[in-house]
């Protein structure tokens, strides 16, 4: 298939500036990996998240590098999911929930007063813990997001390309008219990844995307992610430390020191360092499986 937007060769060039993005979205800046918040990475400053009067996460600052996979790990209930939902303004969808602090995508503050969350979510896509396909055909599941965002190209090609990127095409190419619900759990999750890719976001957030899946499906999704980081910035919450170690370049460890405190980012570094020689004892205890 001729890919209208991105050739294989382009995908393989990891470090080169992503011209497609620069021209299309006009966020400006080069996609250098070293300068913190580059055009396609994210910079989070002093982020806190609340549910009503309950503070779930406090004072998180981190740089999410472009074209890298950043994993967020930590014990249950320490605010990883809450935090990742703040990164595309999904947190505030829950009644009473709000976030404070600054989250920058490129050089734009996504929590700025005049920033439209609908626009943000198109640029920062999200895959959820439980597969949530729409009750529509497989084709429509992928095409819908692109259509509402006014995609003008060849929809058939976009659907095929997105499904291929999500490693689902071969399994569904003969039944695109079938309901998304007819697929297995692992296939549904890859369908959700495909529909996220179809709107061409810049960042993909994944909230434990493989936690409900069998090992074979998990493997497929991990393989997909390796491909994805060549074109996207990926942030993934996971309970599975082997998974974090396998797929991520950077790892953030969230931790609650005392019961009832809000979750904090305890340590954040390159994955290799986090798993071999972390600075803090709690991180080491957690990654070596001594608790959690």
């Amino acid at each position: 298939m001729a890919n209208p937007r991105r050739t294989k060769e382009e995908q393989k060039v990891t470090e080169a500036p992503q011209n497609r993005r620069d021209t299309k979205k006009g966020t400006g800046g080069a996609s250098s990996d070293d300068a913190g918040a580059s055009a396609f990475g994210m910079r989070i400053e002093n982020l806190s998240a609340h549910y009503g009067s309950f503070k779930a996460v406090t004072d998180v600052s981190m740089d999410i590098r472009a074209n890298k996979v950043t994993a967020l790990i930590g014990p249950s209930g320490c605010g990883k999911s809450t935090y990742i939902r703040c990164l595309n303004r999904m947190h505030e969808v829950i009644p009473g929930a709000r976030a404070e602090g600054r989250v920058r995508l490129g050089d734009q503050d996504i929590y700025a007063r005049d920033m439209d969350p609908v626009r943000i979510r198109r640029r920062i896509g999200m895959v959820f813990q439980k597969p949530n396909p729409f009750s529509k055909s497989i084709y429509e599941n992928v095409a819908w997001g692109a259509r509402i965002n006014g995609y003008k190209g060849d929809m058939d090609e976009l659907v095929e390309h997105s499904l291929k990127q999500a490693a689902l095409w071969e399994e569904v190419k003969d039944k695109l008219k079938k309901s998304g619900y007819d697929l297995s759990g692992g296939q549904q999750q890859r369908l959700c990844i495909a529909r996220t890719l179809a709107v061409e976001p810049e960042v993909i957030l994944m909230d434990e995307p493989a936690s409900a899946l069998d090992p074979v499906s998990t493997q497929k999704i991990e393989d997909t992610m390796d491909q994805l980081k060549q074109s996207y910035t990926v942030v993934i919450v996971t309970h599975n430390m082997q998974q974090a170690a396998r797929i991520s370049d950077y790892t953030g460890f969230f931790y609650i020191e005392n019961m009832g405190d809000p979750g904090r980012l305890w340590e954040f570094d390159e994955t290799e360092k986090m798993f071999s020689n972390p600075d803090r004892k709690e991180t080491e205890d957690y990654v070596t499986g001594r608790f959690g």
Partner: protein
Amino acid sequence: MSQSSTEVTRQKEQEPGTGGNFKTSVGARHGWDRFFTALVFAATLIGLAVLGVLLVDVGRQGVPVLSWHFFTSLGSADAENAGFLPAILGSLWLLGIVLIVAVPVGIAAAVYLEEYANDNWLNRLIEINISNLAGVPSIIYGLLGLGVFVYIFGLGRSILTGGLILSLLILPVIIIATREAVRAVPQSVREGAYALGATQWEAIRHHVLPQALPGALTGTILALSRAIGETAPLIAIGAVPYMTFLPEGLLSSFTAMPIQIYNWTGEPEEAFQNLAAAGIVVLMLVLLVSNAGAIWLRNKFQRRN
């Protein structure tokens, strides 16, 4: 060898699974099981039996009267000539008005309350009021309509007035049924849409409403059935006892099936009693068809989802 054979006989003497700390035999528990099965089945039969008796009784009296003449003739003070056509058409007119007025307003209100409304005192007040309205006797709606639509708005004792009253009457039922259906759509569906950059309306229009449709439709059609059978509020605004002409438009005077039946049963002649029975048969058939339609539609949409 002999030891194992005694074991076998011991097992035969005592029911397996009993003995030791467990006394009650499974047989007795199955007995209770059968008893309650019979009990709940009997309870179901009562409803069915009442309907059956009603149908047989009315059918015996009314079916012989059902004829081409009955369906195509106008009302008359003379039982020989009296027909059901104005009542059938009147009910269809009312149904049409209710469909146009109550269904869109009801679904829209339900979507607002479920998807958009904040949890503040005003919206809570609205919610409580809607629940209460669903329980208000229908005659009250008739009197309200008489005061508001007939006297204040000057719409007369017309089809329009009747349709608006019936719309008000079933609006709370439609709202409540649709809200239930909308609430049953999982939040993850909305979030999936938002995550692609959808607006709230796009998520509702393309995902929430289609998934809520079977439930909303079922509730709505049951409410419409109730509207067709409703008599008291129409009597309150003065529907015509018998019509010697067909309804001509929204402001025409009218009669409806239940009104016509009610008036026929009030006549002393037995011929009118038979006409009433025939009218009941027709009304029941219409209700059966519309309820069956509700079930069919629900199944159809559920399969598609």
